[in-house]
């Protein structure tokens, strides 16, 4: 055995809990749901003989009735005047912008149906899960359709007249008018706001980011007199140290950062090095899961840990250390991080997720010592994505509560939900003479306001954004307004007395600007206009680090609470989006719920296990019966709950998801909002609750699926930890040694294949939403997920592995960088509470493995289908024919990868699944090229066969071969880190063929001789002590290796 490392998906698997073992013995979690199926048709199983006769009679008469019916008359209704560019059956693509990220919108017959990344954009063509799901927001039937006054439907004329009148009278009386928005980086919107301000001079524009970066903005103001969020360049960094900044999850511009970070993690294009990434954090974040070295600590220790790193760097830089407050972590990790950072001065980057400007100042100090400014941090072409400060909003809240503010317009913000003291907002709004909300739906704030003016969805709007200084993105509408809405820009303009349309206003604005090299049409077409960037300067600070350190609060000793931003629920703005609710969290794999995440240590202390609930009190906030989730890797004495849940209003899905709103657990002190709180009381409650959690569904029975090696081992041997598994790819003839039931397929034209790089997959889940959007995958809801009936065609398996931070000398010598502890896994850890192993659950290493149909050459599913509903194509695809399937589920049972999904219900037009497929508006998002499956058939990943067919047809129509990279899978297109590659294995020069030849490539379970079409690339972690990159001799060794292993 080459790899003894054991991986596990959850505690129940690790401990072989009886329930888990039992559940996995069965093919399905429970018996056949005949009751439910019948109740769907208003029938019941508990029927007697008479009922049988009734059913029988009904069926006969139904058949007779059906016989009288002629097929329904279907209409085909062409345009009166067909727009030249719209052709039925041909998608049109438009460049647009989702929250500052350049995207392309696919429209069919005038309906936007899919969001894809714009490869010309700064994030290289990736889109995050929220961006993918945003198209569904357009077809939300609960969007506000007309302006309302006092909750009653009104019309624009009335509402505009009254608002403008009141604004004028307030301004005339000298009363304060406040316009509260999120960060506005649209030059045109800013211009509109200044027109508004000019008309009503008592107006002030308040920028409110519910989750703000005021710590960073304030720190940069103090250190460099630049109150901005800088632009970080993770692709320029060889060593990255992150203090709780989840830059691969949702920190500032995570899609862009993922794209940048992945560039240095690939090891597929002849590189010999990867970046080294240290993560010091309290929760196990997506970023932490990808870190090479990760150390958990309590949130209140963060300042101390930053000071400790500063001191280490200062020592190396021969500067003064900070005298007190440093907190050291185990495993010598801070010293090692300092060593690596210092060795890569100018090519290193330290980031911090804290909202405390004092901590951020020390981080700035570290970056300054490392020479990061001008190299990995750019303060000149700074980010404009977040500009709100907590202090500015706090001033506004005071005005609101004191009654100074007379008229307030809330535009795209929901402080009645996101502010920590919602009572203040509620009472404040009641005192106002004029309260207006510009919102898409009736959220908590809109509900309190007198006037609610429905805003356009971004896919119905014109817009421009300056996401970074000098870098502009453009939004163009891809559909006419679905409801009687008006985009916020126009609303502001109308009230300012300007009746220009948004299009004219933005266009005139830009033409007045006369920007160098700007062309309106070109910029709209590309979605991007970038002015020449300024050169990034180095910056020096004169701020006293010791002074800053003194301001940092001392570490708390009791249990601490963290209100964190989960990767796709963020501040709760997308809570009504069922795609995002059903998307499993990247780490916990929980859908539809939020929960109290605690460490194993505290769970043992509280005597709770998963399925139990706890009562938590944080300050004034009392939360009862919060489900517990035991999170390996989480710091001890912390309890964390995600923000964005617990909506009281805002739509069916948002309220169905429910959960707990933990914004009130945050606090405002010293000009910044603190997401953490000390003095938490937590106790076990009597109730139990089952989380809808996918982590141990589709168990692979502990088989060997993840392969990883350390960087040094890989440098010595490019097939490190992959010797046996590379054999089949290298030498397909080896198949002869296996007894096989299958005839070899003759792949005449193409042989499609996919490569997934475990190194760069962050588990973010964007591919899952992209797949659901492309392939009409239904949303099944919480209850069905609990029954293990989620329908996602692609899932991301997340594996834990114990990885204590003290390296084992034997392993180090063997170049493995792992310790023996990692060898212990499933069923072998009963003794983890022993003193010796007590910290095992604090230190886990995480691997993400996207799992989809492997399109096996020798597919076990194909041989067991009694009706030949699943067959093999001569292009290497495992095809699923729904109209042939009779639902025996033999295939799912026989699939070693557990990637087949059965339709237990009809998920469209079914009130039990009242999500988007249950109303005509929601159905507009469906991809017309893909069948909507019905009850009783099996489905699975088709390798986006509609995209393959489309790509092939385009080639045929243009009389040429299919170009490599031309056909992209939905999952691949969406992936910001480029972890997924698809192509034709018949073409020896294709990217996929090159990856197949890479020595990191391996098939899953190829000992079964299933001959999958997907290869995975072993995960390489840069976790050697000390860093491989700081050892000179490795480069030489690596060079020799590459000579030996050339094909």
């Amino acid at each position, binding site marked *: 055995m080459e790899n003894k490392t054991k991986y596990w998906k959850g505690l129940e698997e690790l401990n072989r809990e009886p329930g888990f073992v039992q559940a996995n013995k069965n093919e399905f979690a429970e018996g056949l749901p005949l009751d439910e199926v019948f109740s769907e048709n208003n029938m019941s199983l508990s029927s007697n003989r008479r009922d049988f006769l009734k059913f029988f009679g009904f069926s006969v008469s139904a058949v007779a009735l059906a016989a009288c019916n002629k*097929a329904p008359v279907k209409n085909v209704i*062409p345009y009166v005047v067909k727009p030249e560019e719209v*052709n039925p059956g041909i998608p049109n693509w438009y460049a647009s912008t989702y929250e500052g990220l350049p995207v392309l919108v696919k429209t069919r017959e005038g309906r936007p149906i899919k969001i894809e990344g714009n490869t010309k954009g700064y994030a290289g063509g990736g889109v995050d899960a929220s961006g993918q799901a945003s198209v569904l927001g357009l077809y939300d039937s609960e969007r506000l359709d007309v302006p309302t006054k006092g909750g009653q439907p009104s019309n624009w004329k009335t509402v505009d007249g009254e608002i403008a009148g009141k604004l004028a009278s307030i301004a005339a009386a000298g009363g304060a008018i406040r316009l509260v928005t999120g960060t506005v980086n649209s030059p045109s919107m800013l211009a509109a706001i200044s027109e508004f301000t000019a008309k009503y001079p008592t107006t002030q524009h308040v920028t409110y980011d519910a989750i703000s970066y005021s710590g960073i903005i304030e720190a940069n103001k103090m250190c460099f007199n630049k109150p901005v969020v800088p632009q970080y360049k993770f692709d320029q960094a060889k060593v990255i140290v992150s203090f709780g900044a989840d830059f691969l999850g949702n920190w500032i511009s995570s899609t862009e950062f993922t794209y940048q970070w992945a560039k240095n993690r690939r090891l597929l294009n002849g590189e010999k090095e990867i970046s080294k990434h240290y993560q010091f954090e309290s929760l196990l974040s997506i970023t932490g899961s990808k870190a090479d070295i990760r150390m958990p600590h309590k949130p209140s220790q963060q300042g101390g840990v930053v000071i400790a790193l500063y001191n280490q760097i200062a020592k190396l830089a021969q500067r003064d250390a900070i005298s007190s407050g440093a907190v050291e972590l185990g495993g010598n990790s801070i010293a090692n991080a300092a060593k690596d950072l210092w060795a890569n001065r100018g090519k290193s980057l330290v980031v911090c997720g804290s909202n405390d400007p004092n901590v951020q100042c020390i981080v700035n100090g570290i970056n300054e010592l490392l020479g990061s400014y001008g190299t990995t941090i750019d303060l000149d072409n700074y980010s404009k994505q977040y500009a709100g400060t907590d202090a500015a909003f706090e001033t506004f809240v005071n005005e609101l509560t004191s009654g100074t503010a007379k008229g307030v317009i809330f535009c795209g913000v929901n402080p009645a939900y996101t502010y920590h003291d919602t009572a203040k907002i509620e009472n404040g709004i009641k005192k106002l003479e004029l309260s207006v909300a510009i919102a898409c739906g009736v959220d908590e704030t809109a509900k309190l306001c007198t006037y609610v003016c429905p805003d356009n969805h971004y896919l119905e709007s014109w817009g421009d954004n300056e996401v970074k200084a000098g870098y502009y993105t453009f939004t163009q509408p891809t559909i006419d307004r679905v409801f009687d809405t008006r985009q916020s820009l126009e609303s502001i303009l109308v009230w300012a007395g300007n009746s220009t349309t948004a299009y004219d206003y933005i266009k005139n604005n830009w033409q007045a600007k006369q920007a160098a090299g700007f062309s309106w049409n070109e910029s709209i077409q590309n979605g991007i206009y970038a002015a020449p960037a300024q050169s990034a300067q180095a910056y020096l600070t004169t701020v006293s680090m010791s002074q800053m350190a003194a301001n940092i609060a001392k570490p708390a000793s009791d249990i601490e609470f963290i209100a964190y931003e989960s990767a796709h629920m963020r501040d709760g703005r997308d809570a009504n989006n069922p795609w995002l609710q059903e998307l499993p969290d990247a780490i916990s794999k929980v859908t539809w719920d939020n929960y109290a995440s605690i460490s194993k240590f505290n769970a043992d202390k509280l005597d709770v296990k998963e399925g139990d609930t706890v009562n938590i009190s944080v300050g004034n906030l009392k939360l009862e019966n919060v489900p517990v989730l035991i999170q390996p890797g989480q710091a001890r004495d912390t309890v964390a709950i995600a923000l964005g849940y617990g909506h009281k209003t805002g739509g069916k899905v948002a309220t169905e998801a429910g959960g707990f709103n933990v914004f009130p657990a945050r606090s405002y002190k010293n000009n910044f909002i603190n997401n953490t709180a000390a003095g938490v009381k937590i106790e076990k409650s009597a109730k139990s609750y089952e989380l809808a959690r996918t982590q141990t569904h589709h168990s692979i029975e502990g088989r060997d699926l993840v392969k990883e090696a350390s960087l040094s081992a890989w440098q010595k041997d490019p097939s490190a930890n992959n010797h046996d598994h590379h054999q089949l790819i290298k030498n397909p003839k080896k198949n002869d040694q296996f007894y096989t039931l299958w005839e070899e397929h003759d792949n005449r034209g193409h042989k499609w294949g996919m490569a997934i790089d475990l190194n760069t997959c962050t588990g973010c889940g964007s591919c899952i939403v992209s797949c659901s959007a492309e392939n009409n995958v239904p949303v099944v809801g919480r209850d069905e997920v609990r029954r293990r009936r989620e329908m996602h065609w692609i899932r991301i398996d997340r594996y834990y592995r114990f990885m204590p931070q003290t390296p084992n000398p034997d392993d180090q010598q063997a170049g493995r960088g792992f310790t023996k502890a990692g060898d212990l896994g499933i069923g072998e850890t009963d003794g983890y509470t022993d003193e010796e192993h007590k910290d095992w659950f604090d230190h886990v290493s995480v691997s993400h493995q996207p799992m989809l149909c492997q399109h096996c050459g020798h597919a076990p599913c194909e041989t067991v289908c009694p009706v030949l509903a699943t*067959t093999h*194509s*001569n292009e290497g695809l495992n095809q699923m024919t729904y109209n042939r399937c009779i639902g025996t589920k033999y295939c799912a049972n026989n699939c070693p990868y557990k990637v087949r999904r059965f339709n237990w219900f009809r998920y469209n037009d079914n009130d039990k699944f009242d999500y988007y497929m249950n109303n005509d508006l929601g159905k507009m998002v469906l991809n017309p*090229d893909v069948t909507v499956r019905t009850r009783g058939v099996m489905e699975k990943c088709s390798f986006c066969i509609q995209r393959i*067919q489309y790509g092939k047809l385009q080639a045929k*129509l243009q009389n040429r*071969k299919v170009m490599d990279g031309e056909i992209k899978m939905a999952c691949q297109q969406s992936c910001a880190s480029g972890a997924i590659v698809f192509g034709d294995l018949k073409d020896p020069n294709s990217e996929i063929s090159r990856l197949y030849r890479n020595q990191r490539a391996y098939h899953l379970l190829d000992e079964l001789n299933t001959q999958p079409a997907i290869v995975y690339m072993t995960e390489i972690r840069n976790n050697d002590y000390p860093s491989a990159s700081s050892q000179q001799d490795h480069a030489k060794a690596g060079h020799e290796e590459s000579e030996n292993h050339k094909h």
Partner: protein
Amino acid sequence: MVKSNFLKPLIIPAFVGLLSFSSVCAQDTGAGEKLFTENCASCHVIEGTKSIGPNLRGVTKKHKEEWLLKWIKNSQALISSGDATAVKLYEDNNKTVMSNFESLSDGEIKSILTYVETAQVSTVKVNPENPEIVNTNELTTAAGNSGFYSNTTLLVLLALVVVLILIGILLGRVKGMMRQMLAARFPDNIELNKPSWYEGKFLPWFKNLNPTIATLVAVLLVAVVAGGAYFKYANTEIGVQQGYAPTQPIAFDHKLHAGDYKIDCQYCHSTASFSKQASVPAVNTCMNCHKHIDAKDKYNGEVSPEIQKIRTAYEKNVPIKWIRIHNLPDLAYFNHAQHVTVGKVECQACHGPVETMHKVEQFASLQMGWCVNCHRQSDVDVANNGYYEELHKKLQGMGRKAISVEKNGGLECGKCHY
């Protein structure tokens, strides 16, 4: 009533049996017709307005059968061999190349020829005052309209057969009872007392049957018959709408536009060459011509009411709700561009001689068997498309010129179902 109790169980099987019997018969006689519809009808009609190729009425009298067999299988070979008849025919028809039908057996071709000779053809008359189409012959048409199955005809026939059988059975029973009565009156008459076939042969044989096997055989027979009938019935219920010709909101005449005025199909159905859908033209496409053309001369100086409908739609900006004739189920994916541009399939191959139809009807069954049949018989044009470059080389290496769509994966489920 003893009698009715006796009859009851007989009625349903008899009915069902007849139903399936009639469909079996129809299929037998329809073999030639089926082949004709699938292979020939896209270019030929038997009588009436000439389609792409010449009309076929009397073709067996004009040419010998061997010659016809050669011509149909490979006309170009016959022409290049210098056969005078073939060359003349070729030139008479503007050198339009006829497709080769090497896949058809001699027997199949003969059955087509027989059909061509025997088929009755509907004659279409246009009432000059009302341009509604009057079809004088409901029962048979060369264009593949399965008029035989016209629901009313079938039902009347069936009812008739059932009534006849019932009368037969009744008469049999009456005869038996009369006999019994006669026998009772004349007990000495040997002729009368001789057991009838029913009593003397059938009943003893019936009583000696193994009850289990007999029941099984009976059940099986009923199942086969009922199953066959149900299949036939279900087929029509799942949307097989061959011959469907709804009345459209505007009596657009394809014969006039595509046939007489020879407007190219793709002038109106403009996306067929590059899109999944052929698309019904927008009103502005109609208006390209009908801005000027109003057929006033035919309507006493008034604008034609049908053309007026288009103009009204255009002026009032109200789209026209055409009735869709060709409906594929959601589970089947079909792409026009693949067939029209890449496969170079004539529109008529699937839509029939639209240029002869006043009112368009669904020409093909659009059933999977129909699709698959064509995929079996057609070759991929590997030589003239860069996409097939590798495949072409490979085939040349193997000494082959062509590969059928089937052999190139054209019958795989995933080609149309996803």
